């Protein structure tokens, strides 16, 4: 318990250093562009691939297990849309990204710590926490809604694929379900959730990386710990955010 409070205190202190005035905005802006490419654009492929398959699998599962003569044919499309929009594209996708992006951030910053690159920044008079973490955090928070949009779009494409290539139902039945009782607020709520999760992924994994002590083995441990902590925090905050946003 005491260790948990201590860790949270250290995390808040790190955030205090992150949210300080950057030394040279021009350099930070260049770093931000680099991080958008590294953390955001480079994650698009995995997001598209997973969403495409999950969209297709959800459609098949619902069609085979839930659809009955008592239910209208648009139920499959409707349920697929709601699952993708409400939970998969925001929460589950961020949970997956905490593995890819979170471990990447923790290991990158951790390696910089053990190879004294962070000390070198400090000696130069640079706020290393702000220089290393702020661009990553802003980049991920800016790009996460775009990834959520990709996920929703390709999830629906995946659902259509089951109609076009597997032929389990007609595309028009799916379309009727997808358009049925559509509430645009759900998209907004997904974006809000994803931005919050992006903040958790970037700062928590950066915290673990920044506080590495030791060698390469400890970098690996920090990377694993960051993924575990991010996953737990995402699931916990998802519970709270879902209640608050609905």
């Amino acid at each position, binding site marked *: 318990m005491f260790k948990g409070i201590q860790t949270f205190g250290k995390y808040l202190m790190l955030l205090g250093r992150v949210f300080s005035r950057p*030394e*040279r905005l021009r350099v930070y802006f260049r770093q931000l562009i680099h991080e958008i490419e590294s953390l955001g654009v480079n994650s698009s492929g995995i997001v598209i691939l997973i969403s495409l398959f999950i969209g297709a699998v959800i459609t098949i599962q619902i069609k085979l297990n839930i659809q009955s003569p008592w239910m209208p044919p648009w139920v499959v499309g409707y349920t697929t849309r709601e699952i993708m929009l409400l939970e998969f594209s925001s929460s589950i996708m961020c949970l997956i990204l905490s593995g890819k992006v979170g471990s990447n951030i923790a290991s990158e910053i951790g390696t910089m710590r053990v*190879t*004294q690159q962070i*000390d070198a920044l*400090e*000696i*130069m*008079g*640079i706020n290393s926490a702000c220089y290393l973490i702020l661009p990553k955090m802003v980049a991920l928070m800016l790009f996460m809604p775009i990834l959520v949009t990709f996920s929703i779009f390709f999830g629906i494409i995946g659902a259509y694929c089951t109609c076009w290539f597997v032929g389990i139902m007609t595309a028009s039945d799916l379309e009727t379900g997808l358009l049925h009782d559509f509430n645009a607020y759900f998209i907004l709520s997904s974006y809000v959730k994803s931005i919050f999760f992006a903040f958790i992924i970037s700062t928590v994994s950066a915290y673990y990386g920044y506080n590495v002590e030791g060698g390469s083995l400890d970098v690996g441990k920090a990377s694993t710990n960051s993924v575990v902590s991010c996953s737990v925090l995402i699931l916990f905050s998802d519970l709270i955010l879902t209640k608050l946003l609905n």
Partner: protein
Amino acid sequence: MIEVRSLCKSFDNKEVLRGIDATFEDGKTNLIIGQSGSGKTVFMKCIVGLFEPTSGELLYDNRNFLIMDKKEKIGLRREMGMIFQSAALFDSMTVLENVMFPLNMFSNDTFIEREARAKFCLDRVNLSEAYSKYPGEISGGMQKRVAIARAISLNPKYLFCDEPNSGLDPKTSLVIDELIQDITHEYCMTTIVNTHDMNSVMGIGEKIIFLCEGLKEWEGNSAKVMSAESKKLNDFIFASDLFKKVKEVEQEEIRVRDALL
């Protein structure tokens, strides 16, 4: 000039530095020597501000570093350059970008001027052929030279080198040592080198401080180090067979000279 007064540092009630007094002079290569675990690195990290000393005073040209506010400390740090044991170059940047980095952060010069300054520093350390290479593509000696170029890019008043020769062959070590000494004289910097390499001690030790178990055991220069009377220092220096032989030859020469007289 850097003055250290009664500097102490403890970790979890374990005293690592026990009241060290030292003065590091301008335009000289000041060496801190000692066995592994003697507190050299902790001492240097305290001097540059990476560790907060438990007690003591640290004066940079009469400015007390330990009572400075955050802004003043950052200002002072911009007058420092440091070469780390592992070179600590940024992996994601080319050699030229590494040297330009401090300039990008703190200089108001145009890009062309910053690039010209970075190239000048790299040429100064004979690395004009490696501008576009990444740290992973160059040798350890070259990495150290890039680190020197990066450290001097902002014309620092104080240069710190933490075991600059570790992992290098004797010939490359000599090149690095000469470079550090030349740059120190050229820019009249206060240079502190942390080392346990006896070749460096004999080559560039204009002022030497020997640490042992967190205490300053001896102070002098390379001319006096071989004839010092400190037992702990002699144990450290003559642990190497080469220096034992040198000592024996010297003593033999003295004996022959005395006999002839």
